[in-house]
């Protein structure tokens, strides 16, 4: 089996490596990928179309908004799938399950450590504030809904690691994080439906300027991007915490790492 695998891998890799000479040079500004009209349009017209300096955010949340919406749905479905998979056949009584192989009792009982507790109490508010900054400032600096959402989810994961899963789940129980995840997708699609109702294409934010008379179409695009990034952040943060909480406790949401 190892030899079959090795031959298959070497054959594929050899074919790819032999094709590498036909590739444009690394850093070539006029390679087909970099000189394509689509990429050049994004670089040149972003500031005119929406006034957002960070092109990555503009392409993510405006030009390729449809794509991003369904990426968010994929993350949501993955989170729901993890909860479903881990709970299949969990109706077995507790004593009949195989005992965990590597669970020293001291790990679970040692959540009162003063250094870890104090560090986390100081660190978690800063992390959450930084997450909101990353979400809100994604137009002008690296960041946006995905990154800010993951940082926000990480702050809950840190609380779960430091203080145990149960205190973290008291703050963010399962009914609540599932609701938050769905609310994020609903926020995102609500922007698209609002555009539809105002007579434009789905997720074509320019038309939303009629709702706020003081802004023009470019500003409407900029503000709508912030709105959909908030939706993305809701879903991603809730699902990241859901993934950790379920995987660390085998879907039972008690005990944990």
């Amino acid at each position, binding site marked *: 089996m190892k030899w079959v695998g090795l031959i298959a891998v070497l054959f594929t890799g050899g074919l790819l490596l032999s094709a590498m000479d036909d590739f444009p040079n690394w850093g070539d500004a006029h390679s087909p990928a970099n000189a394509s009209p689509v990429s050049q349009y994004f670089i040149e017209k972003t500031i005119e179309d929406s006034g957002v300096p960070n092109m990555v955010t503009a392409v993510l949340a405006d030009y390729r908004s449809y794509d991003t919406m369904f990426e968010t749905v994929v993350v949501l479905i993955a989170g729901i799938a993890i909860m479903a998979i881990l709970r299949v056949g969990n109706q077995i009584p507790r004593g009949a399950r195989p005992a*965990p*192989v590597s669970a020293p009792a001291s790990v679970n009982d040692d959540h009162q450590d003063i250094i870890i507790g104090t560090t986390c109490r100081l660190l978690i508010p800063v992390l959450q504030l930084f997450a909101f900054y*990353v979400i809100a400032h994604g137009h002008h600096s690296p*960041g946006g809904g995905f*990154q800010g959402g*993951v940082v926000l*989810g*990480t702050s809950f994961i840190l609380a779960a690691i430091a203080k145990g899963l149960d205190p973290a789940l008291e703050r963010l129980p399962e009914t609540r994080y599932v609701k938050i995840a769905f609310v994020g997708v609903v926020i995102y699609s609500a922007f698209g439906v609002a555009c539809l109702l105002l007579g434009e294409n789905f997720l074509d934010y320019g038309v939303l300027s009629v709702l706020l008379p003081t802004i023009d179409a470019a500003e409407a695009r900029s503000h709508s991007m912030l709105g959909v990034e908030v939706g993305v952040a809701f879903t991603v943060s809730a699902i990241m915490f859901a*993934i950790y909480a379920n*995987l660390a406790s085998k879907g039972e949401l008690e005990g944990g790492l």
Partner: protein
Amino acid sequence: MIWQFDIIILIFLVITAVISLRVKDLLAASMVFGTYSFLICLLWAGMGAVDVAFTEATVGAGISAVILIATVYNTRRDSSD
């Protein structure tokens, strides 16, 4: 991008990838995989892909290492290969 840094990081990448697949302790493999993610995050920051680097730093080096370790904790540490 400074190509000397690029080459050094790429060589370290291959080394950490091989180590994380060769080591027999799955907890160590997960930790080395976190290192791999952090190195590739450095590489992307150097190539000018700052948003991708930020995402990789939070997701790759943070979440995926943590969920791998959570699974290793709930299953077993030793591996046959």
